């Protein structure tokens, strides 16, 4: 799975993009976040408060109950502030 991080999430995690082999029992965004939290303190810190985090799957806005698969591009970021 290709996982992207933007803005302060990218800074806290220390990378903007990574590829990870996800365990078979991870099938939703929420489960992916829980699994990432277990990957290290910087992940746990970045995902401490998910109410401030948005997600996109394959470049479409999604919610935390959405299904994810190994070939997906999943992006995490704070609410957008362009314009």
């Amino acid at each position: 799975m290709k996982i992207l991080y933007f803005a302060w999430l990218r800074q806290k995690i220390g990378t903007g993009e990574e590829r990870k082999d996800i365990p078979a029992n991870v099938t939703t965004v929420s489960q992916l976040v829980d699994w990432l939290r277990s990957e290290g303190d910087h992940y746990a810190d970045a995902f401490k408060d998910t109410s401030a985090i948005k997600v996109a799957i394959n470049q479409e806005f999604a919610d935390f109950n959405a299904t994810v698969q190994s070939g997906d591009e999943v992006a995490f970021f704070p609410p957008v502030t362009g314009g």
Partner: protein
Amino acid sequence: MAVRVQVEDFDLGMELKQLTDGNHAIGGLCSFVGLVRDMTKTDDGEMTRSAAMTLEHYPGMTEKMLERIETEAHERWPLESSLIIHRYGRMDAGEQIVLVAASSAHREAAFEACHFLIDWLKTKAPFWKVEEDESGKENWVEARDSDDQATERWNKN
């Protein structure tokens, strides 16, 4: 219809002129330009002077969302032409960040479509701003509820 996501600045006069050139069905052109302010709100709600801003975006998704927003504007209003330019990278106070423009036979459609384009862009296009104060301290700009409300107003009943 055109969408551009770029680092470099844009020539406002030239961009607007090109939107109407040779099309005499156009009776009105409306545009909005967003600029980098030199004042910003800190986490404590205080106003402070900011020196510069850096915009980050999600390449691929950004273009897709901007094109979708522009298409939606054309479905809602009888537009003759439209343009969205959004910059990313580091910008100093006073620089142009974004341009949205729409033209139509009559002013009403041009005004409304222009307003719609910037309102939707602010809550649906994946850009993030980080401001730098004069000491070099970075501060990620937080999304505003008023922007969500501005978007909400255009949702169909």
